[in-house]
């Protein structure tokens, strides 16, 4: 199997997942509980709004047509109108998306960088402090509810020792000047992203350490040692390089979880993002908004998954080059 067919396969898979999620969305938000009309048509709407919604949702069409239209509208980001704000869901989401992406990226890069480097160093220095730290942090990440840590940080830095902003993405009113605004945003990012990193780096570190140790126990590492390569070379060129594929695997295994965490983080720190929008919309039974946010999140995960798949293919020669002989 060559790289191309691998890519095609992953792409096909992504399309299947997208299709499943669209269908899931469709079923969820109209067929499941009760009468779709009731769900979609808020009784408080004006008759015009009701007409508009009926048209938008094509409630009078046969189911298959409805389904196809629905697919089309989601694919074109025609996500309907929010019950509570009466604004287009897509424009509300578009306004929040950058915030979510910034929080997510900072969290993700920070967690992965801290986790991987700690994992490598603890695998290299067994029995030292870094190893204890990694084991502890790994346990911590598995056993401590993340929102609890975030609440504690909130209590600590928001109330006992109020030095950090505890909600929002930017001060109100925002400071003048692009640079000041940037700093202000970064300032607001500290607690949400920082808490996420604190919570998350442990499992990365533990995973990296374990795969590194496994790699370090492999025959090819013994070979590398026997060849008289220096330690650094063995550690980075041989071990770390060879655990890159499993680490990339971890990236896409942890994506859905990271998204889940983001929803909670956004809600705790009142982050003006997509996750909190989904939660608020759901709690307010604002179906179009909830559906749109859910769709957007799912879509983001699918795309990131696809990117991770490509990255995996690039770092693993068995996939990039394909199998010439049997393994």
């Amino acid at each position: 199997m060559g790289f191309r067919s691998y890519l095609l396969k992953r792409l096909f898979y992504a399309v299947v997942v997208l299709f499943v999620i669209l269908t899931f969305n469709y079923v969820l938000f109209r067929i499941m509980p009760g009468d779709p009309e009731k769900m979609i048509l808020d009784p408080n709407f004006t008759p015009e709004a009701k007409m508009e919604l009926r048209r938008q949702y094509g409630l009078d069409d046969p189911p298959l047509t409805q389904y196809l239209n629905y697919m089309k509208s989601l694919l074109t980001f025609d996500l309907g109108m929010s019950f509570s704000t009466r604004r287009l869901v897509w424009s509300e989401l578009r306004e929040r998306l950058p915030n979510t992406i910034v929080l997510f990226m900072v969290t993700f890069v920070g967690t992965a960088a801290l986790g991987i480097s700690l994992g490598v160093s603890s695998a290299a220095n067994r029995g030292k402090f870094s190893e204890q730290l990694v084991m502890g942090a790994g346990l911590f990440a598995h056993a401590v509810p993340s929102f609890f840590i975030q609440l504690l940080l909130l209590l600590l830095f928001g109330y006992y020792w109020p030095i950090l902003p505890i909600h929002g993405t930017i001060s109100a009113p925002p400071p003048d000047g692009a640079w000041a605004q940037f700093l202000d945003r970064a300032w607001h990012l500290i607690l949400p992203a920082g808490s996420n990193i604190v919570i998350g780096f442990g499992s990365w570190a533990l995973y990296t350490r374990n795969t590194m140790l496994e790699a370090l126990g492999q025959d090819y590492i013994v070979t590398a040692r026997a060849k008289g390569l220096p330690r650094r070379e063995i550690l980075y060129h041989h071990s770390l390089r060879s655990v890159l594929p499993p680490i990339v695997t971890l990236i896409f295994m942890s994506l859905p979880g990271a998204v889940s965490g983001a929803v909670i983080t956004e809600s705790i720190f009142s982050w003006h993002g997509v996750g909190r929008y989904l939660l608020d919309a759901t709690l307010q039974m604002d179906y179009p908004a909830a559906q749109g946010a859910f769709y957007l999140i799912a879509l983001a995960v699918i795309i990131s998954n696809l990117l991770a798949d490509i990255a995996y293919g690039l770092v693993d020669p068995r996939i990039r080059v394909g199998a010439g002989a049997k393994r």
Partner: protein
Amino acid sequence: MALLEVKDLKMYYRTARGHVRAVDSVSFEIEQGKALGIAGESGCGKTSMASALLRLLPSNGSYHGGSVVMDGKELLTMSEEQFRKDIRWKRISMIFQGAMNALNPVHKVGEQIVEAILHHEDVSREQAVKRTHDLFGLVGINPKRFNEYPHEFSGGMKQRAVIAMALACHPDLIIADEPTTALDVMVQAQILKSIAELRQRLNLSMMLITHDLSVIAQTCDSVVIMYAGKVAEYGDVVDVYTRPAHPYAMGLVNSFPNIQAARTEVRSLPGFPPNLLAPPSGCRFHPRCPLADEECKQVEPAVREVGGNKHMVACHKAEIVQQGGDIWSR
């Protein structure tokens, strides 16, 4: 003077339940250009000894005495840095047990050889690449496959590549640890043949670890028979095979009537190899030995010479054994 002299080497593993005495007072020599075979049941410490020679101990392994001298230089006390630069691969290289996994799957096969050359010799990359191509040719791999990854190689080719890699820095001694176990029989024969040829051609010394006694008979000059981390018998292949002095060695040797005969696995004696965490008292072989008596149970036999020609054995009853008669079928 011998190329390599191993004396009283002890290497133990620390475990939760005590020390595993995997290499316990092992002594032997390897002459320049000669091949030494090491035989013994699986788990008797062959691989441990090989890695002890290259100072490749796992994290729980440590030396507990003895010396390894190469060309008059003590290897065990040399600084790690110097040992790494001057000895590993340059003087002693190794073909590992299970060579299937000895190549890093994420690097190109050729590069893994070039890397070894560049780390030990002051040559340009072009020269190293060229030498790698030559080595490929030497072991019978098409040099065009330089840029391929291990998964694109078949098992036999991987093993050849590993041999090429072992030859890369013109070492004096190659340690081959069961170089063919994972391969199918036809390929095994080919590989062994080419190892033997290369050795002749390059005048290499070799330490060949196997539990196939016939392979040793065909390719080696002398042999060490190990039992439970210790040397049971050591000497010229002809001496050991024709006049074994240790009951264990005798059992092994007698189980094939003719040196040239079909291959025979070591594992054919009744009983089990001992637990190296708590080896038996006295002679470690006594629970399985048909000649064992009180003395054997109490007193550990010293390694001593029998019948000249550096034929060494660790048995109280070596003379009785050598008198012949099948002690195993009483």
